């Protein structure tokens, strides 16, 4: 991309309602198994896209394509104005600088402490002074309420704490897009709600655009129908979302490599589609 095009893309992306991720007729197959047949959607800046679907429906693969970890067989993928389906691994690095991903089970580095995990990118891939990185790591761990675990190893943490550290690692370098891959799967409802609250806080207080992959309907609806507000005393509260805010969370249901539903939480609840009804019950 030349400088003029980059400047134009940056100008468009700075506007409210700009498309930060565009998936256009994406296809992917592994040998004879077709995973994505023809999938298109757009993530608007500051909004949340919740991808639902049965196991093996291609939800996690969608995130890996956005991140450039997997290459689609066909179609076009735009992330922040860059066509990631055409970029080499080296060219993808600047795109990934604005993308954070929370992997299934966290994917924390076993041999590093919580501090080193959370600050990994800043310590290893930037020239930021160590003191500034330490400060940022402490700030992020404070945000997710895990400051006291800063010097522990990942093996000393519970499942929920590991997911929250993974969220802290993904947000430490302040990306504007976060991708959550089954962030609450396998967690008890109370811990899952804690993780959901972090996702809501990042979206509403930090302005992060999110794609949430899950098959936990309870968490999906909770994220879509709640919002975070900071009161005058600085305390953060999670409240039921206003109708306008709830409209910013859109659901996608993947089935047989295609999108079989797209709409907000209310539309999903009231759908009469037999597959969706079966999934919802």
């Amino acid at each position: 991309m030349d400088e003029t095009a980059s400047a134009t893309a940056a100008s468009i992306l700075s506007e409210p309602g700009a498309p930060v991720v565009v998936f256009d007729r994406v296809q992917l197959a592994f040998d004879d198994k077709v995973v994505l047949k023809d999938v298109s959607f757009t993530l608007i800046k500051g909004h949340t896209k919740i991808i639902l679907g049965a196991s093996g429906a291609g939800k996690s693969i969608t995130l890996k394509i956005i991140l450039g970890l997997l290459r689609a067989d066909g179609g076009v993928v735009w992330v922040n104005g860059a066509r990631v389906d055409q970029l080499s691994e080296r060219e993808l690095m600047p795109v990934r600088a604005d993308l954070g991903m929370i992997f299934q089970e966290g994917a924390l580095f076993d041999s590093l402490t919580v501090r080193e995990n959370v600050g990994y990118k800043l310590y290893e891939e930037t020239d930021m002074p160590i003191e500034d990185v330490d400060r940022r790591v402490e700030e992020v761990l404070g945000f997710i309420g895990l400051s006291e675990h800063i010097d522990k190893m990942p093996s000393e943490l519970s499942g929920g704490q590991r997911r929250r550290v993974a969220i802290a690692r993904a947000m430490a370098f302040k990306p504007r897009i976060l991708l959550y891959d089954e962030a609450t799967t396998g967690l008890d409802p109370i811990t899952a709600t804690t993780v959901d609250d972090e996702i809501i806080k990042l979206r509403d207080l930090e302005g992060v655009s999110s794609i949430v992959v899950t098959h936990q309907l309870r968490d999906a609806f909770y994220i879509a129908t709640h919002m975070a507000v900071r009161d005058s005393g600085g305390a953060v509260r999670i409240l039921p979302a206003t109708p306008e805010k709830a409209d910013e969370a859109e659901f996608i249901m993947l089935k047989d490599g295609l999108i079989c539903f797209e709409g907000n939480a209310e539309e999903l609840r009231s759908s009469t589609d037999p597959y969706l009804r079966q999934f919802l019950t």
Partner: protein
Amino acid sequence: MLAFIVNWLKKAALEVQEYMRLIGATMRGVVTPPIYRHDIVEQFDQIGIGSLTVVLLTGFFTGAALASQTGITLDQFGARPVVGRLVSASIVTELGPVLTALMLTGRIGSGIAAELGSMVVTDQVSALRALGTDPIRKLVVPRVLAGLVMAPILTIVSDFVGIVGGWIVSRFQLQVASGQYWSSVTDVLFIQDVQQGLIKPFVFGFMIVTIACHVGLRTKGGTQGVGRATTIAVVAGSVSIIAMDFFITQVLVTLLY
């Protein structure tokens, strides 16, 4: 049957292609930034210092057993005093490099394959990429550099303790005078032998680490896959070392002698 053979050949060709790509990417990683110095130092410690005990024990007992065995054979010709020649020639050119490399395959080849394999199946390698780190530069380059440098050093150590082991057996079991043993050790060693004994571990160190990294990074199938990768790394590494030893020996004998 034909389809099976074609399929097998395709898989083999793919493995070779991916192995060569890994080597190419590693070479680029060695000469271009970013270089992860901390990881390089850590790998030098793990591969070099960490393997010292096993290499010392292997070298010592190999030299001792060799002296003991050759002493009996040499007695038949009344040539017991030249036992040092056989020990040093065998250890420096052949046994030292090969046995050290086999020990390293068992210790570090399996360790690298298991570590990288676990990182792959738990998405840690994908996480590295997502965080803007090239896994080849972060994980493979430090291990390859450590293998390249430490294998020859460990082989020298192994050769030395092997010859010392041979001396102890020669002196106290075979009753060969120390001066006679040490002079026969040096008498038979030519510069070509030493060159041969240093070139081999350099190649072996590179092979052990690159094969283990290749196998580890291509792990599939969860914890079972990690176990499979570890076995493949040790078997493929060991067989490659013994086969490569034959070819290197042929080339070096032609070129050096």
